[in-house]
C-alpha cells in the first residue's frame, strides 16, 4: 500500500443539531429558467402600465386573470385591456406567510372584480390600514416604475 494514495480533505464541517438521532443541516437551492410561455404578453403589458385579460373567441367568457385557452369551452382566447379600476371582491391581511414573504408582513391581499369580467384578479392592496379593507370598496391599479416581470408589478390603492 502506498500511503500517498488518499482522498484530499477540506476543513469544512457539518452543522449538527443533534446526535441521537443524528440531525444535520442540509442546504439546497436552485435557480430555475422559468418561461411564462403563453402568459408572457400579460407581463409585457405590465411594463406598459396595462392590465391584460383574455376573452374567449368562442363563447365570449372574459378572464381577468389571463389564460391562453378558455376553461369553459376550450377555444383560444384573445388579449384585451382591462379597466384600471375595480372593486374588492374579498380580502385578507396576512401577518404570517411563506418564508419568501415574511419580511413583507403584514400585507393585504385582495381579489379584484372588474366591470364586464367573469373572473377575478389576485393582487396586493396598499394604502389601507389593516382592518379597513371592505368588500365592495373601489380600487385602482398602480404599476411599479421598474418592472420586475412579476404579477406584483401591479398593485391596487383606494380609488
Amino acid at each position, binding site marked *: 500500500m502506498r500511503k500517498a494514495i488518499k482522498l484530499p480533505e477540506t476543513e469544512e464541517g457539518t452543522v449538527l443539531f*443533534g446526535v441521537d*438521532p443524528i*440531525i444535520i443541516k*442540509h442546504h*439546497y437551492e436552485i435557480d430555475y429558467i*422559468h418561461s*411564462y410561455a403563453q*402568459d408572457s404578453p400579460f407581463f409585457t403589458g405590465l411594463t406598459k402600465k396595462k392590465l391584460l385579460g383574455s376573452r374567449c373567441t368562442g363563447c365570449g367568457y372574459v*378572464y*381577468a*386573470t389571463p*389564460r391562453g385557452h378558455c*376553461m*369553459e369551452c376550450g377555444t383560444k382566447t384573445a388579449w384585451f385591456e382591462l379597466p384600471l379600476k375595480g372593486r374588492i*371582491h*374579498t*380580502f*385578507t*391581511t*396576512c*401577518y*404570517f*406567510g*411563506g*418564508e*419568501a*414573504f*415574511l419580511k413583507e408582513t403584514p400585507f393585504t*391581499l*385582495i*381579489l379584484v372584480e372588474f366591470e364586464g369580467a*367573469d*373572473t*377575478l*384578479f*389576485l*393582487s*396586493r392592496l396598499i394604502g389601507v390600514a*389593516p*382592518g379597513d379593507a371592505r*368588500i365592495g370598496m373601489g380600487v385602482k391599479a398602480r404599476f411599479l416604475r421598474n418592472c420586475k416581470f*412579476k*404579477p*406584483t408589478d401591479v398593485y391596487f390603492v383606494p380609488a
Partner: protein
Amino acid sequence: MRPVYMISGGITKFAKAHPDKDFRLMVKEAFDYAISDLPGLSREMIDGSVCSYFSDHFTRQLKAGAMVQDYIGLCPKPSKRVEGGGATGGLCFHSAWEAVASGRMEVCLAMGFETMSRVNTWKGNEFIAHASDTNFDYPVGGFYTGYYAMMVQRHMFEFGTTVVQMAKVAVKNHGNALHNPYAQSPGKLVIEDVRSSSMVATPLTTLDCCTMSDGAAVAILASEETTRKLCSRPVRITGIGCGTDAMRMADRPHGKVILLPHETEEDYRDLKYPGVHSFRGGRMAAKLAYGMAGITNPAKGLDFVELHDAYTSSEIQTYEDLGLCRYGEGGGFVDSGAPFMPNIDYGLDFKSGHWKSVPVNPSGGLLACGHPVGATGLMQAVFAFWQLQGTIGKHLRDATLQVANAKRGLIHSHAGTGTYITVTIMESAP
C-alpha cells in the same frame, strides 16, 4: 366492478416531529399495526400497494414510495405513487379501491406518510404555496392561509358566518382529540382562546388552522371472497366520488349550484356559485359518492363524517358542500350543536336547530390530529373503519369517541383551495 371492503388499518401517532423515525419506519409501524390487528392476514397475501405522499420538497427524497415498498417487504409486487395535494390520501384510497374493484388485485395496501418537520414552518408554508399558480398566485400571496382567509371573508359576507361560529369548530375538534391518543394537539379550549391566539391572516388565527405534522397511516382493502375468509367485521366501501375546480381562486365561476337529490333550484335562486365561498369540487365529489351509495338525504343517511378541516372555516364550508345543511347554513349548523359529539361537554350552549345530529370529525380532524398530508386521507379511513367496526374503545383505549350504532360514515379529502376533492362512503358489513 366488484364489491370492495376495508379489512384493516393502522396509524402512527401524529406529532410535530418524529426525528427518530424516517418515512419508511413510520409507514412500517402503521403497516405492522394493521397486519397484527387481523389474525390470518399476512404480508404475503398483499398483491400490491399504492403510496401516498404530497411533497418531494418536504421529503428531500424523490421516489420515496419505492423506498417504503422495499422497507416493508413488498418488492417485487406492483406499486405506484399517487399525488394530489391535500387530497393525496383520499385519492390513494380510491386508487387502491380501483385495484380491487377491477379484479387486478385481491388485497391492496394504501399507505401514506408525510415528514413535514424537516423544514421550518415558514419554509413549509412556502412549499405548500407552490401548490398555487406559480405565475399569478404564488408571487403575490405565497400563503395558503391567506387564500382560505379570503374565501371565508366572502362566506361571511354572503351568509353572515361569524368568527365565533368558526371558533366553536376549533373547540369541538380539539376537545374530541382529548380522547384520541394518536392526535397531535388535543386541548380543552374556550372561544376566547381561539380568538386571542395570534392572527395569521384575517380572520383566521393560529387555532383556526391545522398544524404541520409527521405521521403515517395505512388502509388494507380486499375483495369480497378474501374478506369473507379473513375478516369478521369488515367495512364495505359503498360509494366513491371525486370533484375538481380551477387552480386559481380568481377563476372560480359564478353559476348555478350543483344540486343534491334532496335540494331544489328554488333553494338557491339568488346564490352565485361557487364563487370563492364554496367548493364546487366537494359538491361534485359528494354527488357522485351519494349516487353510488344510494344516499338521497345525507344528513339523515350518515352516522358520522370525518372531513378535511384544514381550517375551521373550511369545515363550515364543507358541511354545505356535503349537504349536511343548505348552502349558507353552515354557521347555524355549528350553533345548533349538530356536528358535536352528544356525549361530550364542550362548555358551549347550543341553540335549537332543525338539523339531525351528525358528529363531524369525532377523531379531532386535521385541526387537532395534525395534517401529515399524504397520511391524512388514510388516517380518516382508519378512524372511520374503527367507528364502523365499533372498535374505537379498543384502538384509542377510550370509548368516548365511539359514535353509537355507527352504520354508515363519510370521509372527505381536500386539496388546494378545492382543486381535487374526494368523498368516500363506508358502511359496516356484518
